[in-house]
């Protein structure tokens, strides 16, 4: 694919310049020129009134014979992750739009509740059960999943954008020589081309990009947890449970898992939390984290932080939300004493409901807040905590 500018037709009017999201088209000597960094999004093509800009595509041959939507259903310690059900619910919609089947693939040992994947919407579940698959040996997972895909040829594969998904799914894509879109927050099927439209934030959430994988199959995406809602399970749904044999002799894990140390300091993990209460520099000192911690406890929420408290050692890095920390998507995000710098917003602005408590009414956090309180957090938060404690009968 290339972008071409017809110098004859171009009048140098410059209407293409401001629409380029990347600022790489410029009129020089009355003719538009494209600099490095163009990603062929086509915004300038639409803006040009003289038909002078064209994006030329070389039609690639679409890999033939791929059918069906697949979801990789991740488990840890024999329990399916919530994101697995979310993806099955979303995968169901995509499969219906394509008029095809939805299958889930579960790799592990003695995983509880795999039949729930059928209640959540799967037509088939490929279950690969073996003691050696209980832990996340990614060499084995890569090989098992790749083999299944090569055998059954799905057209789409979705996985959670978890530590595990983001680590081993790219390896599967590399082997299959197909495209993979990371950390999607939107999925749809193009009604004409039937391609999977994969939308994800880039530039720290400032820009959204929709990506397609035109010719290679499967079209693969990792999907951010909590973005899609888990549907109501239907216990009447019927589906097929397919047990897949695992041949432990044909693959060995090159890496050795020596130990797994669970982080017990956190009652609720920030990545999968439905509610997060975050503190920023406005807390003023490490001791004051107690104020937000108490609110978090009442709500059963995970504790988050902006970067300065982490940099100053008030709280471990695993709590940092933002561009260089974690990206979260809870139902409720309460930011106390956080100004809302773009790097922080990048990690949390997709939350369903955002509450901001800040004494500076001009703080940018209020621009994304559903509910805003201009006030002193040291006054407001303890009252809020006490009030919630009361109404929840925890007093």
């Amino acid at each position, binding site marked *: 694919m*290339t972008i071409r500018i017809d110098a004859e037709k171009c009048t140098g009017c410059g209407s293409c310049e401001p629409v380029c*999201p*990347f*600022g790489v088209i410029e009129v020089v000597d009355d003719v538009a020129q494209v600099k490095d960094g163009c*990603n062929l999004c086509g915004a300038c093509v639409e803006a040009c009134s003289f038909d002078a800009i064209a994006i030329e595509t*070389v039609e690639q041959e679409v890999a033939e014979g791929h059918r069906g939507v697949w979801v990789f259903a991740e488990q*840890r310690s024999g329990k399916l992750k919530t994101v697995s059900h979310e993806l099955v619910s979303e995968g169901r919609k995509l499969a219906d739009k394509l008029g095809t089947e939805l299958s889930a693939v579960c790799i592990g040992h003695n995983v509880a509740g795999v039949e729930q994947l059928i209640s959540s919407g799967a037509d088939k579940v490929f279950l690969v059960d073996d003691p050696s698959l209980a832990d996340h040996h990614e060499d084995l997972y890569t090989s098992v999943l790749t083999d299944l895909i090569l055998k059954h040829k799905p057209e789409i594969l979705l996985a959670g954008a978890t*530590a*595990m998904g*983001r*680590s081993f799914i*790219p390896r599967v*894509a*590399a*082997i299959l020589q197909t*495209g*993979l*879109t*990371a*950390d999607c927050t939107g999925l749809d099927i193009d009604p004409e081309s039937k391609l999977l439209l994969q939308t994800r934030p*880039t*530039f*720290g*959430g*400032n*820009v*959204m990009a929709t*990506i*397609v*994988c*035109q010719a*290679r199959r499967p079209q693969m995406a990792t999907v951010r947890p909590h973005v899609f809602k888990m549907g109501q399970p239907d216990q009447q749904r019927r589906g097929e449970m397919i047990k897949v044999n695992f041949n432990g002799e044909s693959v060995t894990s*090159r*890496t*050795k*898992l*020596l*130990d797994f*140390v669970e*982080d017990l300091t956190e009652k609720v993990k920030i*990545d*999968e939390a*439905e509610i997060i209460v975050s503190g920023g520099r406005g807390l003023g000192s490490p001791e004051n984290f107690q104020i937000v911690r108490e609110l978090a406890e009442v*709500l059963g929420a995970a504790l988050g932080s902006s970067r300065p408290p982490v940099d100053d050692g008030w709280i471990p*890095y695993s709590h940092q939300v933002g561009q260089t920390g974690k990206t979260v998507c809870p*139902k*409720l995000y309460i930011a106390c004493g956080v100004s809302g710098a773009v*790097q922080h917003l990048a990690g949390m602005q997709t939350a369903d409901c955002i*509450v901001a408590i800040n004494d500076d009414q001009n703080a940018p956090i*209020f621009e994304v807040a*559903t*509910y*805003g309180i201009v*006030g*002193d957090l040291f006054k407001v*938060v303890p*009252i*809020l905590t006490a009030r*919630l404690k009361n*109404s929840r009968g925890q007093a």
Partner: protein
Amino acid sequence: MNIIVCIKQVPGTTEIKIDPETNTLVREGVESIINPFDAFALEEGVRLRERCGGKVTAVSMGPPQAEAALREAISLGADGAILLCDRAFAGSDTWATSYVLSRAVAKMADYDVVICGRQTLDGDTGQVGPELAEMLKIPFVAYVSKVDDVGDGHMRVQRMVEEGHEVIEIPLPAVITVVKEINVPRLPSLRGSMKAKTAQIPVWTGEDIGSEPDKSGIAGSPTRVVKVFFPKRTTKSEMIQGTPEQQAEQLAAKLEGVV
């Protein structure tokens, strides 16, 4: 121990703002920096060399300007650097980027570990590390937060996952990606800065690394961006007024509806 560190030059996104009139990214005054996560990768490479001997080579695929990032890498302790630059590489997605890097690493031949950052600020996918490992057909561990031990032909590392961390032994050569927790990068040294000024940075083209044109750049990229747009902030903020007691009271009532 021969260490390769993959670094990318990215816009220092602190400055990136949206022009409300035109709805485009304001690029003026945006300086280019070494991708922050790659600074941790580089620092870990330099520490490994200090521990075990050997050399650190920084590699970057990018436009000619990316040479500046490689010079900075030398000032921060890398022994040498290589720029992968060819028009045919432009527009590469993660698959094609990994392919080009894998050809370059294969050409460098004698290496024990390749270190990547967890993800880039602009691409922001974290896919290049694992895809590179697979193309080189060598073991891989993501999200490394500590290198515990380096032995003969293997390394013991800690890897961050949602629930805690895993301790993993990995045979070398291997690819790892590192997280911010792994170290605190040093500042450029005077000696390093002097060296960076005069260092020769070879430029390798597609021909030099023997990459097939249809596997790099836009031609070699399975994915394509079809639309770029700015997220609309649909939420209209509702400001809660009153005394702290009234504010807390009202908010508590609203929250009952949310959770």
